[in-house]
């Protein structure tokens, strides 16, 4: 504190406008933190549609690619990309070189949580990337601040290769603004070895009732032995339960109406609250690293998390001699299947790019078979492709863990770009219910009001 000096502090905080992704892990779950509004329709999109038809970019019908700018195709200038992982960047650039040997690509490692905010300034300053990655939940912001440009003719190719859900969440006014790269949907991870020892079968639970059944004997709060662990205080993790009982986010595609007061939600929240009996932890204490690290030790039968843990879990499973599986999230016995909120990382073509054609070629390449193979090989992430297309990716066929995530992704709810105040008010709602701070009804009312307030302030 003192050692920084005082302006140091205020500057530090000052900088956070741009560094708004800053924070420690548990505040920034990759896929559930903040998103952006899309209540910005009207004139600009009509104009941009017109521009998209008349962009001046040449399309090569035979190669199904845009014709790259001569500076780029000759290797005179290089294309600049921002990716989150060094390994992925290397593999991807190498694969790209095979197909386009003359093109030079420079990469920088930039965290997905930072990229859009940085792009907004660096782009304006003429220093930004041509192609960069972000998470889907920040896409609305990228469209708003014009760091994401429409993809043009690649839409047709991509639509053939990707599930409709993914296409829809990156689209606005029937234009695609991002290339879905990898799917990060949460799913149920289960310890096969432990389950077998406990129940005699390594089949995972399909309903919450089964989880509760096991919890009766297995839970021991004194020693922190829990049957299931998940981030209880976040809408993103509560959503599968709520959707199983009939509450779906923006069912009518109207961002003005979150339906926080619906009866289905009341039912869902009441059920969600009963889960506290098997995972009796205050929301803020249930940090994600405490969740994942216990599974790694092989002492927790179930955790709900996403594919980013594969690398750690695989290593731990080998070290601690257990097998684990990945499957769809448990549903409420009396309810429908549990839908999750979409989680994907996307590649965006910068609106500031000087080489719009080449940038689109690269972005499209990232979703190609070669690009998908680079993604899977380097960091083990799951390409956001249709199930049958994924099988073409080298090495992915027969990977059961990935199959589990894909199965859950198919249950993902189709949501428009979720405004950030949905998470602000929704997370507060979930915490109020989970930590028993308010009655379900009061919490719903408060959330409804909070949503309206935040929405009004942004107008």
């Amino acid at each position: 504190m003192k050692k920084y000096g005082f302006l140091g502090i205020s500057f530090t905080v000052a900088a956070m406008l741009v560094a708004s992704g800053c924070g420690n892990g548990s505040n920034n779950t990759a896929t559930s933190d903040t998103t952006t509004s899309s209540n910005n329709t009207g004139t600009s999109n009509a104009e941009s549609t017109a521009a998209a038809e008349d962009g001046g970019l040449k399309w090569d019908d035979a190669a199904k690619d845009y014709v790259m700018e001569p500076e780029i195709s000759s290797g005179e200038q290089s294309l600049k990309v921002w990716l989150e992982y060094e390994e992925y960047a290397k593999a991807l650039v190498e694969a790209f070189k095979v197909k386009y040997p003359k093109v030079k690509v420079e990469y920088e490692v930039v965290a997905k949580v930072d990229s859009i905010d940085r792009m907004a300034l660096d782009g304006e300053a003429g220093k930004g990337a041509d192609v960069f990655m972000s998470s889907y939940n920040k896409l609305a912001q990228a469209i708003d601040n014009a760091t994401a440009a429409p993809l043009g003719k690649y839409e047709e190719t991509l639509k053939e290769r990707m599930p409709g859900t993914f296409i829809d969440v990156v689209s606005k006014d029937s234009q695609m603004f991002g290339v879905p790269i990898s799917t990060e949907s949460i799913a149920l991870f289960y310890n096969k070895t432990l389950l077998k020892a406990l129940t005699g079968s390594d089949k995972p639970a399909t309903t919450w009732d089964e989880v509760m059944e096991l919890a009766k004997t297995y839970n021991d709060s004194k020693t922190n032995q829990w049957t299931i662990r998940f981030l209880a205080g976040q809408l993103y993790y509560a959503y599968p339960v709520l959707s199983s009982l009939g509450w779906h986010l923006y069912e009518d595609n109207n961002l003005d109406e979150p339906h926080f007061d619906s009866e289905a939600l009341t039912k869902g929240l009441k059920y969600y609250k009963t889960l506290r009996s098997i995972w009796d932890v205050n929301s803020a204490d249930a940090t994600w690293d405490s969740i994942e690290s216990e599974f790694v030790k092989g002492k927790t039968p179930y955790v709900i998390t996403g594919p980013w843990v594969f690398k750690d879990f695989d290593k731990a499973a080998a070290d601690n001699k257990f097998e684990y599986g990945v499957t769809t999230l448990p549903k409420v016995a009396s309810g429908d299947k549990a839908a999750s909120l979409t989680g994907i990382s996307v590649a965006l073509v910068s609106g500031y790019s000087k080489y719009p054609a080449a940038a689109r070629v690269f972005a499209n390449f990232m979703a190609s078979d070669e690009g998908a193979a680079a993604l899977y090989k380097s960091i083990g992430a799951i390409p956001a492709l249709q199930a049958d297309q994924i099988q073409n990716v080298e090495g992915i066929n027969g990977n059961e863990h990935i199959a589990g995530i894909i199965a859950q992704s198919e249950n993902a709810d189709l949501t428009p770009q979720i405004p950030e105040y949905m998470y602000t008010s929704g997370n507060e709602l979930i915490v109020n219910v989970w930590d028993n701070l308010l009655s379900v009804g009061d919490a719903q009312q408060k959330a409804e009001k909070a949503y309206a307030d935040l929405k009004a302030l942004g107008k």
Partner: protein
Amino acid sequence: MNNSNNKQTTPAWATGILSAIVWGGGQWLNRQYLKGLVFFLIGAGSLTAELTTGHYNDMSAGFRLRDNGGFFLKGLWGLVTLGTQPRKMGMSGLTPGDHSIVLMANGIIALFVILILVFFYVWNIRDAVMARRRMNESGIHQSSLQDMKQLWESMYAYIVLSPAALLTLFICILPIVFGVLIAFTDYSRSNTPPTKLVHWVGFDNFVTVTQVFSWMHTFLNVLLWTFVWAILATITTYFFGFFQAVLLNNSDVKLKKLWRSIYILPWAVPAMISALVFKSMFNGQFGPISQFLLDTGLTDERIYWFTDPNHTYLARILALLINLWLGFPYFMALIGGTLTTVSDSYYEAARMDGATSSQTFWKITFPIVYKATAPLLMLSFVSNFNNFGVIYFLTEGGPANPDYNFAGNTDLLITWLYKLTLDNRLYNMGAVMSIIVFLIVASFSLINLRKSKSLEEI
């Protein structure tokens, strides 16, 4: 006197006018060539900057600030209008256009530079007139160097201060001006450049903020806690540092250097990592401390340090203690040094009078040390008031409070505003609330400073 009849005499005002027309012109007339050259270069330099950054070669459509203006003129134009033409998104990228926020920032930068230039300009005129007047009165010609030497003598403090002042002006004050001006625009989620233009909206945002009355309760309570936090955090680090320093000053303590080295360690570790480790250690459910207390039977149940909604003061106290851990070494070092300087003669006199050790401390040691360190208490209060890092990394504001809007029990104004306005992209609202907070804390501090009379000693 002799020269007054001399026809060479130039009236002082004439040099002034000449300097007003051409930078350094009057000085030239005064035959103070070096000074004239310096002023001329400043003037010519700024003109060149304007010309080279603008597009003055193509004015076929007449002169338009937006298209032809350079760093200064376009800057001012941007600050006033905030742009007139939004960019449009198309397949080949963004069309040319204006980015309101960038224009605003550049405008403020240009304005600051212009203010400095105006200062030099006025000086340039004044200098010419004054120098001439002096010469006319005394009849002695003074060279540039003599004049400058005189200037160095009379303005020494200002000259010495100028580098620091310049840095502070641009890197500390300018951004704050920007932050304040944001409050008077409609820059927010629904109005994001570059495809939309931001506009000046006067005091509209201040009106909007007062309309969310339901948040007033949160604001007042968070404000209250922020004051409590800032005052207690300052007092605890100060007095505990003091206490440790006094102990280490005790002649019976051996290995002073070792103790000091240990106590100073929290300094060397990045505060963020310490805060994260504390957060993990004091995790109510999974942290080792709760578990230890439970295992040893010291408590029947886990203590939910940061998350117990029924005992919210616990989180607050713990946050203060952890802040103490991070902050006391500074005051320990500071006061430890001051202590060794308190003259022994004071203590001897006290001993002769039969004073007890606590009397000696309160009557002699404390007043001396306090006087030497009092200004730092104010600085420490201010830094604690805006202490973003500790709370954000330690508790994230928790435990949650259902009576508040988006704030937890340990949230300080700064963490609350940050989460609320940046996560939700309510930039203009954030700026409005920043101004309100600033007015409150600044007036509180000024009143306090005035009371403590330390102002008069400046």
